[in-house]
């Protein structure tokens, strides 16, 4: 009797576990935890400059300050990709820079931690604080 109840509990636990797990592999392709608009506002900032090259160099500098190793970049497309490690977890990040209007540039960053997308506003806030510092440093010629 005890054995029977043990198996019943085990069956129940595995059912709960499989139902509560992450989405299946195909669902993951287009899945995000946040709404697209919310995510975009978390990950983007506008800067009052039109110097794309300088902005991209600041982004590269910031990523390096944050211990990222630059993996790829393109001035035409305005993209920079970097990678770093947290313990044995890989952290990957890409940043895009594009013109927002005649006076501003839009910088958007997105990161993944191991197998998870980073969608926490505070993390991106930290990144933009670091980027602001880097622009400040560039402007004030500390390098």
């Amino acid at each position, binding site marked *: 009797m005890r054995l029977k*109840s043990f198996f019943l*509990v085990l069956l129940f*636990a595995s059912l*709960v*576990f499989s139902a*509560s797990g*992450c989405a299946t592999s195909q669902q993951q392709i287009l899945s995000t935890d946040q709404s697209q608009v919310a995510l975009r506002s978390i990950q983007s900032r506008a800067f009052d400059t039109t110097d794309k*090259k300088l902005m*991209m*160099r600041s982004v*590269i*500098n910031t990523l*390096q*300050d*944050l*211990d990222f*190793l*630059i*993996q*790829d*970049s*393109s*001035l*035409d497309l305005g993209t920079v990709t970097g990678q*770093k*490690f*947290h*313990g*044995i*977890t*890989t*952290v990957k*990040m890409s940043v895009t820079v594009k013109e927002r209007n005649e006076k501003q540039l839009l910088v958007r960053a997105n*990161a993944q*931690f*191991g*197998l*998870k997308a*980073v969608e*926490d506003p*505070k*993390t*991106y806030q*930290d*990144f933009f*604080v*670091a980027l602001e*510092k880097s622009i400040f440093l*560039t402007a004030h*010629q500390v*390098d």
Partner: protein
Amino acid sequence: MKWLRPFVLCFLLAGCVSIPGNLLVLPSDYLSAREQQMRKFSTLDEKQVLQAGAGALQDLGFTIDKSESELGIIVSSKDRTAVSVGQTTLAITADLACALMGSYSNLYGQTDKMQKIQASLVVSPSLAQNSTVVRVKFQSIVWNQMGQVSRFETIKDPKIYQDFFERVSKAIFLEEQKI
């Protein structure tokens, strides 16, 4: 049924790994890291510095994976062995000792097998003077005999950076002299 409670708790806690809050916080030592990773060269010719950097990386056995001259970036890597005789001997001895005592262990499988060392080099103009700044960073990934990643590290040994920059300045000097 009380004994089941810890298991249920384990299931609940075993979800996906949580993301650390300080993931993108600027480390407190970033200025000293800059000092270590950056050197200023008194030339305005970015292309020449980039070529000298590529040469220095090749001197150290790195192969160039990607390069972009507009932003002055070179990404390179090298694959090397990570086998250490001491570590391997110790692991095999321990495994043999376990086998003799009738138990099984696979410490050998956890010893280092290979490593990939990656280097990224960024060349940018310095606004302070008529000079160009080179920033380089080395990282290594080590795999064990079972093919799992055993550790990642950013290389922080100042000697490696010094050696690298000496090579770059030598290469710039050589190119200036056109030897």
